[in-house]
C-alpha cells in the first residue's frame, strides 16, 4: 500500500467509493464542495458506481438520504455550516427513525455575516439531534473515519456525522494510505441485495404517536445512543486489526505526570501535539474523537491526580455559556474523583490556533473564565 497526496475532501470521496455507497444526493457548499465534485467526477469516470443525484438544496439532499435509507440502501451526503443548519429538522427525523446513513461536515462559521472560516459551532450545535458525531485530525483520519462511520451506522441503526475542520483539513494536501477495496469489503457489512420494501405494497412509516408511545421510543433511542461507546470501540478495534490505525473515542497523549492538559477535537489536536513535542513539554493532550455520545466515563478514567489544570480549546461557542467542549467536559467531570481547574481558550469565529496562543494559555493567570484568543494575538 503506497501513500498518495490527497486533500481531506478528496479522501472523503475515496472513502465513499470504497464503501460502495449506493445513493449520493449532492448539493455544493464551501468548503465541502470538492467532496461532491470529486464524487461527480468519479461517477463520470466509472469509478463510483452508486446513484449520484444533483438536488436543489441540502434539505432535499438529506430527504433523499432518508428515502434511500428507508429502502435499506447505503447512503451518504456532505455539507457545511448553513447547509447543516438548514437540515436540522431532518437530522432529528433520520435519528428518530433509526436510519443508517453517513453525513460528512466540513466545519465553517455560521452567519451573519457571511464567513467561511473554520468554526466548529455548525456541527457541535447539532449535538441534541441524536446523531453520532466523530471528529478528525488528519486527512488519513478522515478517510478512515468515513469507513468506521459506515460500520457504526450499520450496526447501531443511528446516523453518523463525520466532522473535519474546513480548509485546515478539507483543503490540505498530505500523504494518505488508501486501503485496498478488498480490505474495505471485508470490514464493512455486505450490501442488501433488495430494497426493504416494495413500491407496489406501500406502507406508512412513522405515523402519529401519543406521548407515552413517544416516551418509550425516546428511552429506547437514548439506550441505543449510550451503546455507541461499545459499538464504536468494537468497530475501531476491528479496523485497527486490519490497518494498524487506531482512533479511540478519547485519547490521552503526552506525559503521564502532566500538570497541564490541553483538550480539543479536530485539526487543532495536531497543532497542540506538535507544540508539546517541540518544547519537550510536560503537558499532555486529550483528543476527543467521539463527541456524541460524549465519552464521559472514558474521559474520567484518564484524569489523574497530577493534573492541576485542563485548558479546553474550543473553536465554537454556545452564547451565554462558553465553549461547547468546555461545557461537556465540566459535566463529564462533575462526579470525577479529581477536579482540575478548567480554563477555556476560545477561538470562535474561526481563528488560527498558533503555538504563540498555546504558550500564552499556559502562562495565563487572569481571573476570566474564558481566554478569548482574539484578545491575545
Amino acid at each position, binding site marked *: 500500500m503506497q*501513500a498518495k497526496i490527497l486533500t481531506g475532501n478528496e479522501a472523503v470521496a475515496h472513502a465513499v467509493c470504497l464503501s460502495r455507497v449506493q445513493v449520493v444526493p449532492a448539493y455544493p457548499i464551501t468548503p465541502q464542495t470538492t467532496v461532491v465534485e470529486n464524487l461527480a467526477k468519479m461517477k463520470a469516470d466509472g469509478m463510483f458506481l452508486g446513484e449520484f443525484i444533483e438536488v436543489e438544496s441540502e434539505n432535499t439532499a438529506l430527504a433523499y438520504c432518508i428515502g434511500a435509507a428507508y429502502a435499506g440502501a447505503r447512503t451518504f451526503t456532505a455539507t457545511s455550516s448553513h447547509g447543516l443548519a438548514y437540515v436540522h429538522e431532518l437530522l432529528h427525523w433520520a435519528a428518530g427513525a433509526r436510519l443508517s446513513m453517513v453525513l460528512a461536515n466540513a466545519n465553517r462559521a455560521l452567519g451573519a455575516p457571511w464567513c467561511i472560516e473554520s468554526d466548529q459551532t455548525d456541527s457541535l450545535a447539532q449535538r441534541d439531534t441524536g446523531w453520532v458525531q466523530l471528529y478528525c485530525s488528519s486527512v488519513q483520519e478522515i478517510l478512515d473515519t468515513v469507513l468506521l462511520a459506515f460500520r457504526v451506522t450499520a450496526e447501531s441503526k443511528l446516523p453518523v456525522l463525520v466532522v473535519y475542520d474546513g480548509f485546515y483539513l478539507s483543503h490540505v*494536501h498530505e500523504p494518505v494510505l488508501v486501503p485496498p477495496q478488498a480490505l474495505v469489503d471485508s470490514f464493512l457489512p455486505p450490501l442488501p441485495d433488495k430494497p426493504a420494501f416494495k413500491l407496489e405494497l406501500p406502507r406508512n412509516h412513522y405515523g402519529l404517536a401519543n406521548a407515552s408511545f413517544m416516551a418509550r421510543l425516546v428511552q429506547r433511542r437514548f439506550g441505543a445512543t449510550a451503546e455507541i461507546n461499545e459499538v464504536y470501540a468494537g468497530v475501531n478495534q476491528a479496523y485497527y486489526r486490519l490497518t494498524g490505525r487506531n482512533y479511540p473515542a478519547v485519547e490521552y497523549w503526552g506525559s503521564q505526570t502532566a500538570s497541564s492538559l490541553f483538550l480539543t477535537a479536530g485539526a487543532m489536536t495536531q497543532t497542540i501535539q506538535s507544540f508539546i*513535542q517541540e518544547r519537550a513539554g510536560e503537558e499532555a493532550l486529550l483528543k476527543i474523537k467521539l463527541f456524541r455520545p460524549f465519552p464521559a466515563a472514558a474521559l474520567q478514567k484518564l484524569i489523574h491526580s497530577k493534573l492541576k489544570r485542563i485548558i479546553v480549546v474550543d473553536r465554537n461557542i454556545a452564547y451565554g455559556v462558553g465553549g461547547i467542549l468546555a461545557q461537556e467536559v465540566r459535566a463529564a467531570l462533575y462526579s470525577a474523583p479529581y477536579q482540575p481547574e478548567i480554563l477555556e481558550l476560545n477561538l470562535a469565529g474561526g481563528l488560527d490556533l*498558533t503555538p504563540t496562543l498555546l504558550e500564552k494559555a499556559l502562562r495565563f493567570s487572569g481571573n476570566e473564565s474564558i481566554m478569548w484568543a482574539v484578545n491575545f494575538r
Partner: protein
Amino acid sequence: MNGLMEIRLHGRGGQGVVSAAKVMAEAAFREGKNVQAFSLHGAERRGAPVTAFARIGNTALLPRCQIQHPDFVIVFDTLLPRETFCAGVKEKGVYLINCPDAKANKLAFPGVQKVWFVDAAKIAATTGLLSTGIPIINAIMLGALARIGLFQFASLKTVLREKLPGAFAVNLTAAEKGYESVKETK
C-alpha cells in the same frame, strides 16, 4: 526544528500560487519527506491576494496552523503589500522573488540571509510560456526552487508529468527556464 522547513507563498489569484504549494509538497514527498500544503481561501478571485503554505519535514507530526515564522518566503508579485510577505520571517529566512533584480529589494530585508530572484514574468512573456493564455509563472518559480535546493529537479519533473499530463511539455520548459535563470543577490 527537527529539519522542518516552513514555506509561505504570496501571490495573486490566477498565478498558480496554490498549485505551486501543492506541487512543491508532492515533489518533496517523492523524496521521502512528510509534507503538507494548504492555502487561505475566501478570495478566490483572479488578481486578489493569495497566501499558501507548505511544510516539508522529517517527522510524522506537522502542526496545522498558518505559518507565522517562515524559513522560506516565495513572492510571486512584489506589488503586494510588503508587510504581508515580510511578516514574521525567521532571522535566517530565505526569499525567492519574482522580479527583474532583487538588489533594491534586498535593501528592504535587513537581517535576511539570502534573497534569490528570478524574472519569471519576463521569461514567461518572452518565451511565450502560456497556459490558457496565462503566463506560467508558477512552474518557473518551482524550477528556481529546485535550483535553490528545496527538492530535486527530477522529482519536480515526475510530479509535473503525472499531474499535468496535458500541459507537461510547456510546464517542463518553464521549470527548466526557472532553474537556469534564478540568481542569488550578492
